[in-house]
C-alpha cells in the first residue's frame, strides 16, 4: 500500500476522492481552506468550486446529492453558522448520493472570531457526526462518511479541528471507488419540505438516529483500549493523541462517533474502571452525556474549557506533572510578533485616512481586521462575515444623522459578496444614509489568495464572469458609488469626506490589487 505524508486537510480531500465523490464546494476559511484547494489541485475527477458563502456551498452540495452524486461541502466552524439553515432542513430531506459536510473547529481561535464547539450542531440538527484523531483517520473517516450517509439517509458531518487540519502524518492511500450516479426520482414527499411532508420526515429521522446509535454501538469508530483498570479516560479527536502520549498505562475509550454517542460502550467502559475521566477540547459534550447516564467522571474540573489542549495541559491535569524547566527565565520583555498589514498593503492607505478623520469604523472579517491594532487602531466593531453594514445602519438608527456623518462600514470584496449584499439592500431600503467602503483588493486575501466571483476566475483558474461591484451597488439603489485607488491618498480622503457628508447612502469602492498578488 502506498504511504504518503499528508496534511490533515489533504487527507480529507483524499478520502473524498477515494469515496467516489464527484461534486465539492466550499468558501475559504482557516483552518478548512486547503481541503477544496487540494481537491482542485490533485483530483480533477471531482468538480470543485468556491461558492460565494457556506450556505450556498452546502445548497450546491445538497442539490448534487439529491441529483444522485456523492458530494461534499467543507467549511470552518463559523461557516456552519452561515450554512445552518440548509443543514437543519436537509437533515429532514436526507440524501440520495452520499452527502458529507467537513466542519473544521478552531479551538484556540488561531484565526477565528470565536471558539464555538460544533458538536452541538450534530445533536441539534439530528445528523451523525464522526471525528478523526489524526490525518490517517481523516482520510479513512471521510471516505466512510459517504457510505454511512447513503446507508442512513442522513447528511454526515466530519468534525476536524485546527490540529487535525494543520498537522501532517503518514497516510495509507487507497484506490478510488467507482460510484455510479444514482437515479434521480421525483419524490416531493422527501425533497419538498412543506409542513405536511416535514412532519412524517421528522418521525423518520428520529427513527434513523436510533438506528445510528445502534450502529455507533457496534462500529469500530469507537474503540476501547484496555490497560490498567485503575483509571479510564474517555477522549476524542486530537485529545486522544495527547492522552495516549502522556497516560500510556491507562485504559482509553476513543470516541470516533461524536453523535449519536454509544451508551452501551460508555457503560461497559465506565463500569470497567475504578476512576473515570473525560478529556475533550472545548465544551463538556461527552462529559455531560456521561453524567446524564449516571456516572460522575472527572472532566472540566481538570481540563480547561478555553483554548486548545496540549500534551502538557493533559499531563499536568491527569498526572500532576509540571513541565521540565531546565532553562532560567529571561526577565525582560520579548516583543510579540503579531501579524500585520503588509508593507504597501492597499488597506493601509484606507485606514490611514480613516484614522486621520477619526471616524467610527464598523469593520468586518479579513486581513483588514488587523487595522484594529496599532499603528492604525481604527476599527470599533466587528463580529461576523458581513456584519459591518448592518451594524453601521444600526449605529445610525440608534444615534441618528450625526453618527452616520462620522462613521463608515468597511468590508472586503469577498466578504461583501459572501454576506454584504443583503445588508446593503437593507441600508437603502430602510433609508440609511451611511457610507460603505468596499476594500476591493481583487482577491480573498487572508485565507491565502483564493479567487471569488469578483476576480473573474474560478477555483480551477478558468475564466468566468467577473462580478461588477459598482453595477451591483447601483442596482440595489445606491446612487452615489465612487471608485477610487486608495494609493492616491489625498483624493481618497476627499472622497471619504464628501461621501460621509452626503445625507444619502453611498459606497466607495477602494480598488487596488493586494500587494502580494502578481
Amino acid at each position, binding site marked *: 500500500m502506498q*504511504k504518503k*505524508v499528508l496534511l490533515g486537510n489533504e487527507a480529507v480531500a483524499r478520502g473524498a476522492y477515494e469515496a467516489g465523490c464527484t461534486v465539492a464546494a466550499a468558501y475559504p476559511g*482557516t*483552518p478548512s*481552506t*486547503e481541503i477544496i484547494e487540494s481537491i482542485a489541485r490533485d483530483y480533477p475527477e471531482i468538480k470543485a468550486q468556491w461558492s460565494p458563502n457556506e450556505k450556498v456551498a452546502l445548497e450546491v452540495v445538497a442539490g448534487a446529492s439529491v441529483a444522485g452524486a456523492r458530494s461534499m461541502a467543507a467549511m470552518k466552524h463559523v461557516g456552519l453558522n452561515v450554512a445552518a439553515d440548509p443543514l437543519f432542513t436537509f437533515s429532514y430531506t436526507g440524501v440520495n448520493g452520499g452527502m458529507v459536510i467537513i466542519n473544521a473547529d478552531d479551538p484556540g481561535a*488561531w*484565526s477565528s472570531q470565536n471558539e464555538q464547539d460544533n458538536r452541538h450542531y450534530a445533536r441539534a440538527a439530528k445528523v451523525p457526526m464522526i471525528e478523526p484523531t*489524526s490525518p490517517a483517520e481523516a482520510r479513512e473517516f471521510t471516505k466512510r462518511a459517504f457510505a454511512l450517509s447513503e446507508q442512513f439517509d442522513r447528511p454526515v458531518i466530519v468534525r476536524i479541528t*485546527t*490540529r487535525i487540519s*494543520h*498537522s*501532517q*502524518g*503518514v497516510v495509507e492511500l487507497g484506490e478510488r471507488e467507482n460510484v455510479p450516479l444514482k437515479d434521480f426520482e421525483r419524490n416531493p414527499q422527501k425533497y419538498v419540505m412543506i409542513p405536511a411532508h416535514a412532519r412524517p420526515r421528522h418521525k423518520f429521522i428520529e427513527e434513523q438516529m436510533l438506528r445510528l446509535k445502534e450502529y455507533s454501538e457496534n462500529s469500530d469508530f469507537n474503540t476501547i483500549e484496555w490497560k490498567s483498570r485503575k483509571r479510564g479516560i474517555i477522549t476524542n479527536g*486530537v485529545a486522544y*493523541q*495527547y492522552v*495516549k*502520549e*502522556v497516560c500510556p498505562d491507562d485504559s482509553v475509550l476513543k470516541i470516533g462517533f461524536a453523535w449519536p454517542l454509544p451508551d452501551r460502550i460508555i457503560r461497559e467502559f465506565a463500569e470497567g474502571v475504578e476512576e473515570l475521566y473525560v478529556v475533550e477540547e472545548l465544551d463538556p459534550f461527552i462529559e455531560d452525556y456521561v453524567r446524564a447516564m449516571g456516572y460522575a467522571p472527572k472532566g472540566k474540573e481538570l481540563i480547561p474549557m478555553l483554548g486548545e489542549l*496540549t*500534551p*502538557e495541559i493533559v*499531563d499536568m491535569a491527569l498526572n500532576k506533572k509540571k*513541565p*521540565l*524547566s*531546565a*532553562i*532560567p527565565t*529571561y526577565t*525582560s*520583555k*520579548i*516583543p*510579540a*510578533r*503579531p*501579524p*500585520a*498589514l*503588509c508593507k504597501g498593503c492597499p488597506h493601509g492607505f484606507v485606514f490611514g485616512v480613516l484614522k486621520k478623520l477619526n471616524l467610527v469604523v464598523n469593520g468586518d472579517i479579513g*486581513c483588514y481586521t*488587523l487595522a484594529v491594532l*496599532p*499603528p492604525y487602531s481604527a476599527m470599533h466593531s466587528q463580529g461576523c462575515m458581513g456584519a459591518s453594514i448592518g451594524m453601521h445602519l444600526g449605529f445610525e438608527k440608534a444615534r441618528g444623522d450625526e453618527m452616520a456623518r462620522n462613521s463608515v462600514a468597511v468590508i472586503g470584496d469577498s466578504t461583501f459578496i459572501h454576506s454584504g449584499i443583503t445588508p446593503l439592500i437593507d441600508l437603502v431600503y430602510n433609508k440609511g444614509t451611511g457610507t460603505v467602503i468596499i476594500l476591493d483588493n481583487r482577491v480573498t486575501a*487572508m*485565507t*491565502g489568495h483564493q479567487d471569488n466571483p469578483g476576480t473573474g476566475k474560478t477555483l480551477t483558474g478558468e475564466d468566468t464572469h467577473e462580478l461588477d461591484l459598482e453595477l451591483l451597488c447601483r442596482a440595489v439603489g445606491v446612487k452615489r458609488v465612487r471608485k477610487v485607488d486608495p494609493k492616491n491618498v489625498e483624493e481618497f480622503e476627499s472622497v471619504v469626506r464628501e461621501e460621509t457628508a452626503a445625507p444619502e447612502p453611498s459606497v466607495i469602492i477602494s480598488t487596488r490589487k493586494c500587494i*502580494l498578488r502578481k
Partner: protein
Amino acid sequence: MKNIIFAGVGGQGVILASKILMEVAMNAGYDVKESEVHGMAQRGGSVDCHVRYGEKVYSPLIEKGTADYVIAFELLEAMRKLEYLNGSSMLIVNNEKIDPAPVQTGLEKYPDDIESWMKASIGRHLFVDTEAALKEAGTRRALNIVMLGVLSNYLEFTVDQWTAAIRSMVKEKFIDMNLLAFKLGRELAAAH
C-alpha cells in the same frame, strides 16, 4: 523518538523545512507527525512547526520540556521556544534579527542582549551566521534549506537520504540551488 521544533517568521520557509525532514524520516521507516499553524503566517507573524518521528508517534504537538532540537530562523523566535528545551536539548539559531511590527512602529524595543543571554543560559547551543552561505546560494529564500543542512549534522540520516527528499520536495528548477544550500549549511555546522 525525536522531537524537533522549527521556529521563524512568516515567509522564511519554516513549513517546507519541516516537510522535508518528515519526508526523510518517513522514507527511513519511521512513523512521523507534524503540527503547524497557518492563517496569519503570511502577514509576517511568528510561525512554528513541531516534527516528531519514531517507532510510533501519537501527539502531533511536542510537550514542553521535551524537544531534542529547536531550530530558530531568527533570534526572537528562538526566545519564544525556550520552554520546550530541557537540559540536554540543543538550540540552533540563525543569527539574524527581524524587527516585529511593534518594534518597527517604535512601540517596543528589540532586546539587544538575547544572544548573549541564550549563550550563557543554554548548555547546548549553536549560533550560525548564514550570510555567506545565502550569498553563495544566490537567494535568501534558501535559508530554510541551509538550516536543514546545519541540523543534518546531528540527526541519524545520510546525505543521500536528505538529497532524495529535497529532490522530491522542491520544484525542479530549484533543486540544484537547494542542494547547494543544504551542503553549505552542513559545512557551516561542521566549521563550529
